[in-house]
């Protein structure tokens, strides 16, 4: 085979991400009609956007974005960088439910078997797309919140401690609007 020949096609692995780690693949979500500013400083902001509800949970995107009309901090000054930026690696998001339960992206609080065994809801999973300044992470809350306030917070002790709150009714109503792409009948 030539050095430049394409590699042989690989057979399918058959792996599917477990249902508790992703939104349903065969549903049109109900859109939650809110956008949240979770934190904002003079130079940086973090938003919660793309809230999509399903019968099994809530998907949303956390976005960190720098203020576009400010000059960038020096790229070779990590101390100054830390003061001016929020990085998703250094922060964990916590969701506080109306019944007192909390879930967090702090993986130290996740069950060890979350990839192979279905955890009890609520469970908050995420994966991020990094960048030097702007970043995004996709989140999936396995399990719907109970009625009442639903808070997106960075717990005290983080810099900054900040958050935003919505009425979980918006999520529950959106979940009711989700529809199946391929009805079983």
């Amino acid at each position, binding site marked *: 085979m030539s050095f430049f020949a394409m590699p042989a096609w690989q*057979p399918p692995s058959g792996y599917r991400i477990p249902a508790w780690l992703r939104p349903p693949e*065969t549903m049109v*979500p109900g859109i939650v009609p809110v956008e949240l500013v979770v934190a904002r400083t003079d130079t940086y902001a973090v938003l919660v956007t793309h809230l999509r509800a399903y019968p099994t949970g809530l998907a949303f995107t956390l976005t960190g974005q720098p203020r576009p009309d400010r000059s960038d901090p020096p790229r070779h000054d990590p101390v100054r960088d830390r003061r001016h930026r929020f990085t998703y690696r250094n922060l964990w998001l916590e969701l506080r439910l109306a019944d007192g339960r909390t879930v967090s992206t702090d993986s130290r609080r996740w069950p060890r078997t979350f990839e192979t065994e279905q955890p009890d809801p609520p469970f908050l999973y995420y994966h991020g797309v990094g960048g030097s300044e702007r970043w995004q992470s996709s989140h999936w809350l396995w399990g719907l919140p109970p009625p009442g306030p639903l808070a997106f917070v960075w717990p005290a002790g983080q810099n900054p401690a900040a958050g935003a709150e919505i009425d979980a009714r918006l999520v529950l109503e959106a979940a009711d609007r989700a529809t199946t792409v391929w009805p079983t009948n």
Partner: protein
Amino acid sequence: MVPGVVPVALLVARTGTHAVLIDGLLVYPTGFDFDLAVRRHPALPRHQTDPRVWHELWLEVRFADGRSADNGPGPWPRPDDDRPPDPPLLYQSVIGPDGGHVWLWGLPPPGPLTFACQWPSEQIPPSQAELDAGLVLAAAARAQTLWPAQAVSP
């Protein structure tokens, strides 16, 4: 800016094996972005598709006044031209097996806003779905500036 959200997702095409959704419509005063989301029937065997196939999912957005934009190969504005292009202009920034991400430069006039697609290599025929452009315009009006002194380019 904090965008305004359009509170609907659209099912644009559906066959026995595939569906195409318009999802995550976020609106700014200068235009809107959304996910062009591909769904595969769970009974469909999983295999890696040729990336060339991903690029064959054709999308067109049509305004009520007859203007339209699509994710075809161009023509594109010259990179050395500082003037903003005439709207609408559709830019698909992500192309993959699960669809892509799209920015549409320019807001639609009132009336029906049509999303049309076809994907011959996946046997999706010409299909379309409509949205009331009023939902997009109302969302644009709800968009907020994060830093009030920040200048917004039209």
